[in-house]
């Protein structure tokens, strides 16, 4: 269950920093905010991997919506039909992914995430 208590002030500053960093990196490199949100929630707040990834996904919903709003002229650039159609396999994937995640050890999620980070780093170096 989500914690009912409001986070203390210093925690709010750290969360604000995570949000700002996530926005900056997604703006700079086009990598989603999740790349930065998940590790920082684990390092700075001691979240378990499942809590970190779940909270990250919820934050990404908002980041994506705000990003779309900020782009303003996005309407002409979004291929709605294609996006919705390709969302179907993507939804199947995310349902599968979250289900699998509940059944594997949390540390396995850390290892997978580390692999993802290495891939992101290599992509940035090769660019």
């Amino acid at each position: 269950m989500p914690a009912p208590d409001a986070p203390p002030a210093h925690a709010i500053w750290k969360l604000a920093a995570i949000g700002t960093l996530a926005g900056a990196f997604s703006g700079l490199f086009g990598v989603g905010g999740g790349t930065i949100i998940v590790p920082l929630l684990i390092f700075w707040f001691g979240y378990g991997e499942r809590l970190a990834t779940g909270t990250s996904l919820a934050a990404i919903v908002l980041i994506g919506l705000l990003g779309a709003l900020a782009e303003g002229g996005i309407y002409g650039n979004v291929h709605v039909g294609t996006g919705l159609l390709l969302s179907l396999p993507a939804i199947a994937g995310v349902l599968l992914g979250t289900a699998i995640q509940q059944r594997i050890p949390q540390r396995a999620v850390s290892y997978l995430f580390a692999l993802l980070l290495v891939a992101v780093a290599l992509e940035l170096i090769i660019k």
Partner: protein
Amino acid sequence: MSELAAALICLFGGLTGGLVGVGGGILFVPALTVFIGLSQVEGESTSLLMIVIVALVGSYRQYGYGNVRLREALIVGALSPLGVFAGVELANHIPERVLQLSFAALALFMAVQLVHRARSVP
């Protein structure tokens, strides 16, 4: 045929998103540009739509499992536009290559830390 490849890549993108808590854009964008033939801008914009949908479904499921702190997620998400502006400002003053390599180094550092931490947690 290329539509099938795009669908498979998007399935894998969603799977990655669900497993490690990212939006999946890292795979959606190439699926849309390389296999569907959208331009980079169209691909990134359309990918944003897909990310919102995938993250919505994923976080709804994770909420059901008790793995979402809504208030914290709200703070992180709400502050992200500030970061976007900061990022643009940064890009105006620091060469792109320096930024890319800095973030690559940070990503590698975090990868090592994650593995180290996972190995030490009982």
